[in-house]
């Protein structure tokens, strides 16, 4: 009656033939170019900040916006190099439910904390006072975007820190971690190709989930209680823009993960296009209009279309890759 377990079981799924090709494409067409662009834009932002630290400077703001764009475009790749040393949190601490970001910055400014003079020491500053979310306050918040010598030093410290952090992520991906990603094995971060693909796939699904639940869900709140002030990056007017970047970047990744299945790839592409169209119809960069019935409807439609794109991608890709996701995470008990 007692059985030997292994003989009684079936594998979850056969390994797809395209697994290595997909890993290669994910790395060389999505991950590496994305982090290389982030590294370059962050380096440029830091350079511009050494030239001007005036929070009103169009050059500084443009460099900031470009660098933040390139972070949002890879921010769904939350495994490996972005997680070491809390780098992802250090690049963007949001949602900030308790206002820790402005509080941490205000304290540094009030104390004129000399830690801004030492880039290595600055790595130990609370993640809330680092990264793009902090820099947004320093450039756009009426109370914190107030020029002074210390403010200038703080902007330079934050931008240099962003450059260091993004360079470290890019270096890891270009080096050992990227190599190990393509060569799974017993002692590598991923033991099988399916495991490595599952990490990328999970980045896509949780990235889209974040866009649905946090980027759109938090400002939407409930019909009775809309919460427009909870919109991400509203000070810099980038709330809707982040949703668009997330849709486009994950659409690209979804195409890579559906290699070899052209019909499903076309369905997925169409679902992401519908989401992008819905985003373009939201004429409200910071979701201020969620309290107004017609404005709200457009944001809700966008949320539904992103949800649909995520579900389309999930249903088409997950089973093909042999990924049985979230057995416990989705159970909730």
């Amino acid at each position, binding site marked *: *009656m007692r059985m030997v377990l292994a003989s009684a079981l079936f594998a979850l799924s056969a390994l797809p033939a395209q697994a290595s090709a997909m890993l290669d494409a994910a790395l060389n067409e999505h991950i590496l170019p994305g982090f290389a662009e982030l590294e370059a834009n962050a380096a440029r932002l830091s350079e511009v900040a050494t030239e001007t630290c005036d929070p009103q400077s169009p050059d500084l703001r443009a460099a900031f916006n470009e660098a933040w764009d390139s972070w949002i475009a890879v921010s769904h790749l939350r495994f490996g190099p972005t997680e070491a040393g809390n780098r992802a949190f250090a690049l963007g*601490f949001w949602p900030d439910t308790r206002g820790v970001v402005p509080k941490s910055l205000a304290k540094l400014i009030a104390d004129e904390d000399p830690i801004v003079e030492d880039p290595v020491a600055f790595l130990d500053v609370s993640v809330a006072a680092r990264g793009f979310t902090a820099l947004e306050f320093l450039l756009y918040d009426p109370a914190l975007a107030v020029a002074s010598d210390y403010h200038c030093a703080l902007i330079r410290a934050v931008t240099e820190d962003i450059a260091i952090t993004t360079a470290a992520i890019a270096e890891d991906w270009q080096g050992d971690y990227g190599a190990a990603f393509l060569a799974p094995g017993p002692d590598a971060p991923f033991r099988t190709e399916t495991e490595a693909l599952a990490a990328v796939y999970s980045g896509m699904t949780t990235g889209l989930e974040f866009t649905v639940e946090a980027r759109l869900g938090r400002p939407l709140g409930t019909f009775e209680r809309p919460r427009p002030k909870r919109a991400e990056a509203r000070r810099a007017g980038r709330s809707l823009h982040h949703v668009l970047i997330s849709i486009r970047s994950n659409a690209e990744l979804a195409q890579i993960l559906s290699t070899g299945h052209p019909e499903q790839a076309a369905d997925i592409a169409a679902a992401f296009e519908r989401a992008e169209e819905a985003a373009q119809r939201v004429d409200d960069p910071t979701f201020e209009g969620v309290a107004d019935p017609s404005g709200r409807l457009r944001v809700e439609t966008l949320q539904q279309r992103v949800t649909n794109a995520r579900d389309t991608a999930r249903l088409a890709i997950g089973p093909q890759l042999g990924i049985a996701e979230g057995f416990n995470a989705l159970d909730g*008990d």
Partner: protein
Amino acid sequence: MTTRRRVLAGLLASGLVPAASWADAGSPAYLAAARRGDGRYILVGLTADGLPLFDLPLPARGHAAAAHPKRPEAVAFARRPGRFALVLDCSTGDLLARLDAPTGRHFYGHGAFSADGTRLFTTENDYGAPRGMVGVWDAARGYARVGEFSSGGTGPHDILRLPGEETLVVANGGIETHPDSGRAKLNLPAMRPNLSYLDPNGALVEQVAPDPALHMNSIRHLAVAPDGTVAIAFQWQGDPYDAPPLVALHRRGGELRYLQAPEPLHRQMQGYGGSIALSGSQVAVTSPRGGILQLFELGQGAFAGDHSLTDVCGVSPRAGGFLVTTGTGAVHGLSGGVLDPAGTHPLQWDNHLVGLVPA
């Protein structure tokens, strides 16, 4: 079925046959429910090293299990809101009894045996009321229903017995549900979780509740240490980015002592403690949503490290550390802060890894 159950019960009660022991089932150290690659559900016995020893079919998705302290019997509970539990003979694979929730009740997925193994206690929902109940079953006589009493709150989930005594400790999650609306949470604004200590007759001997400001922190899963320390894993029902501590320790007569990792690590838990275990000087809590396991020192409550594991949930003590299971089929040992792969199986381990070491 009834006849077979009576015969078995009679035999076991009369002592006419030599009693089977857990050694007859290969001496498993753990039980865990799982889903196979073909979609079927099973209950698996594992060795102390985390190797599967046997598996028995389940008719639907399981959740947790309760192991009889002496006989090789396991009670496998259906996933909430299940209406049945199966008593399985782990040495023969036979179905010994089927527990059907009485009319108007469903199980929550956890149960505990009395120290002598004569009684099984199950957490249940009296959903018409609604109120949390503990059902009492006679494990010496074919698992007949012999009574029930209040769990001390709403939405009881985990239930354990304190080591070396008959006192039960119940996690009353505070959340009201009704099987007609599936798992929908019906009372979040008004929920009031508590930890209740009950004697085996149902008398409430002690109760402790989170601070009113934390009333949306659902007390869900428990672990007990040999010295009677109870560890609690919470599931936060409020803003997921604003979760309070998700682990607490309690000793009879004391207050809740909360443990939390520093930010931003705490955020990685996503407001959700899935399973909790105590081993030596440490407590481990898992979050399948965050794909993370966090460790704390019992003494000062200091954060003692974390480990990323996709869909991690099951965790149980073993010599020198913990054994961990995931929804991707992996089993890991965890000792001295080092995660040691102990096999990957073509199945998905369900929420809990239940240790058989008698308390």
